[in-house]
């Protein structure tokens, strides 16, 4: 008798859109045979807020708050990408203070974003305590941001030609203090979670992304670096002066199991936080004097043209394709979000995994639905 004759009917299990682990409103249709998943079909669009249509109705500067709301966990990086694209269209150069401030805020936000990613990932795997430790540290970063520009999560900070607020007095000392007490916390996290045998068993050898799959599906950011490929836009196509800073790019090494597993991606994020600390310290040391709004134009009216510009956000490569027709309002703004591309790889890497592994995989690719659906 053939095996197929004994195969029972597969069960269709629906995960989401309301589910504690899908990191937002993501609906996964799982076809399972017992515990093994045969097929995963992601359904997105539950958080679609028509960013691209809005961008065709408001002026260039008015689009920036909308940009923040796409990847709401790392908003500094979103508005940075857009501001850089428009500045390229206008052929506008900003001064050194603005560039340093932009890097400072982008890296602080990278730390906050990775803390959230690691904390929620630990919670998905079942370890509840690192979640609270990570959020305790993240609160300190958000307090710094609130002091700076009044907002905790959605800042409207990076404007075309400058930034919205200069540093208040005492900000630099407080940031240094935060970094001083944050470095040992990363080591504590390593001891509690990274090398915990149960955590390694759950995440190593799960969700392997090969190099070929990664390039074909345009996987970028820590997900790509977890597969051993040393590619970071901050080093390859530097912006804001990143080429003048000393930092390294951590990659996954396949320490436990195959290269490109969930553990590698998680570990890349932990080590990236350490590199961000180095970047922030260097930025604080070299902060030059200057007016942060001296190059902000009164009216933004780029000449006719188009540009595709990309930056490295905590989740990968965020691309803005802006078409200008010479008016005050953008003609077309298309956003290529990193989580969109990495979610498209889920059906191929989740074949043959168990239901618990699907949770581990989704947590490790660190998706934010706001960015996927825009």
């Amino acid at each position, binding site marked *: 008798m053939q095996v197929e004759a004994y195969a029972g009917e597969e069960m269709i299990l629906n995960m989401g859109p309301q589910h504690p*682990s899908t990191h937002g409103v993501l609906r996964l249709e799982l076809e399972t045979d017992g515990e093994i998943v045969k097929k995963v079909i992601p359904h997105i669009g539950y958080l679609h807020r028509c960013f691209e249509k809005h961008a065709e109705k408001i002026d260039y500067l008015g689009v920036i708050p909308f940009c923040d709301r796409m990847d709401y966990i790392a908003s500094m990086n979103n508005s940075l990408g857009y501001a850089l694209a428009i500045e390229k269209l206008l052929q506008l150069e900003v001064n050194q203070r603005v560039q340093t401030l932009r890097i400072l805020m982008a890296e602080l936000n990278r730390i906050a974003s990775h803390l959230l990613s690691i904390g929620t990932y630990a919670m998905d795997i*079942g370890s509840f*305590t690192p979640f609270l430790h990570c959020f305790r540290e993240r609160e300190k970063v958000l307090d710094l941001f609130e002091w700076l520009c009044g907002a905790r999560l959605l800042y409207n900070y990076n404007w075309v030609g400058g930034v919205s607020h200069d540093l208040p007095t005492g900000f630099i000392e407080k940031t240094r203090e935060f970094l001083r007490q944050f470095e040992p916390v990363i080591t504590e996290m390593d001891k*509690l979670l990274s090398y915990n045998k*149960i955590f390694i068993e759950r995440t190593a050898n799960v969700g392997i992304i090969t190099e070929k799959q990664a390039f074909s599906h345009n996987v970028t950011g820590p997900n790509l670096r977890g597969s051993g490929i040393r590619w970071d836009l901050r080093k390859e196509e530097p912006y804001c002066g990143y080429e003048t800073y000393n930092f390294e790019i951590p990659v996954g090494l396949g320490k436990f199991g195959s290269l490109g597993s969930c553990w590698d991606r998680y570990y890349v994020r932990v080590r990236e936080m350490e590199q961000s600390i180095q970047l922030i310290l260097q930025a604080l040391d070299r902060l030059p004097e200057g007016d942060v709004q001296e190059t902000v134009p009164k009216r933004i009216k780029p000449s006719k043209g188009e540009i595709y510009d990309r930056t490295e956000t905590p989740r990968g490569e965020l691309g803005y394709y802006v078409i200008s027709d010479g008016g005050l309002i953008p003609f077309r703004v298309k956003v290529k979000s990193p989580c969109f591309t990495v979610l498209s790889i889920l059906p191929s890497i989740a074949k043959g995994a168990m239901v*618990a*592994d699907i949770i581990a995989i989704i947590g490790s690719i660190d998706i934010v639905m706001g960015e996927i659906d825009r």
Partner: protein
Amino acid sequence: MEYLRQVLLQKVAGFDQLPGSLQVFIPMLLGCLLCLGLVALFPLFAVWLERKVSAHMQDRLGPMRVGGWHGWAQTIADGVKLLLKEDIIPAEADRLLFKLAPIVVFVGGFAAFVVLPFSDQFIVSDLNIGVLYIIAISSLGVVGIIMAGWASNNKYALFGGMRAAAQIVSYEIPTMLAILTVVIPVGSLSMQDIVRAQSGGIFNWFIFQPVTFLAFWVFYIGTLAEVNRTPFDIPEAESELVAGYHTEYSGMRFAFFFLAEYANMFLVSAIGVTLFWGGWQGPTWLPGPIWFILKAMALVFVQMWLRWTLPRLRVDQLMYVSWKVLLPISFILVLAAGILALVTEGHLNE
């Protein structure tokens, strides 16, 4: 409950006029009611303790307001809230099984309390097959869990129920074999006999004997899995299956599952204390029951500690640990206990 019968004979006037069967039955009933009281009140305390323990491990405070001092009345408030909730039964659910499941789970745990030796005299029923009775009756809980998963008419609940059944049944075997390593030197299945075999000072407790020391760890890990605590809490894995087998339960029925889980935690800790940590024995400046409860609480605290530190195992890894790690170890331990008993010819504590 001979002790209680004597007390009633002396203190209550007219007790000796009751027919013989009632003279036996009433103390037994009182004893069971006392156990029921413990089973109902312990979870109240344990939930509060868990919230405080978890809070302090996570660098926060936990309940602080309800009742004044560190929120001691928090669980009472939660219990009242659960009592007042609407009783929702899903439309397509199997009504009888749905209502029966929490009761079966609860009874499976509660019925085992009657053979716990709280002190020299205070044991509701000193069965001479006490250990066998405990192992048998606590397996009843699995039936209740499967009933809950099936009757809910919900794929997630079914998943949870199946996982729980597989897990509990698998881990019972190493647990039982670990218990056997204690029974072999004692030569009796009665709980009081096992406690008495550890008398004569702290170093006679089985935890300090070579073979049973290792058996305790096997027992502890096995019972962690039996009560569905992390790292073995896959059946109720919040982030994966919403709430596992009790997804569809609300109000008092959910409270029953909750009560049953914490009562079970105390039960397995109490069994561990009886078998390995000398039961109610301790320096005489505190009475026996207090020592018993203190030791059991220490083991419960370690269970909570583990929950808030470790991630959870996946189902197949869980099965691997049970069948390929704990089971061979427990077989070897039983063999070692047998050889040791032969060699010392039952004179273990001399």
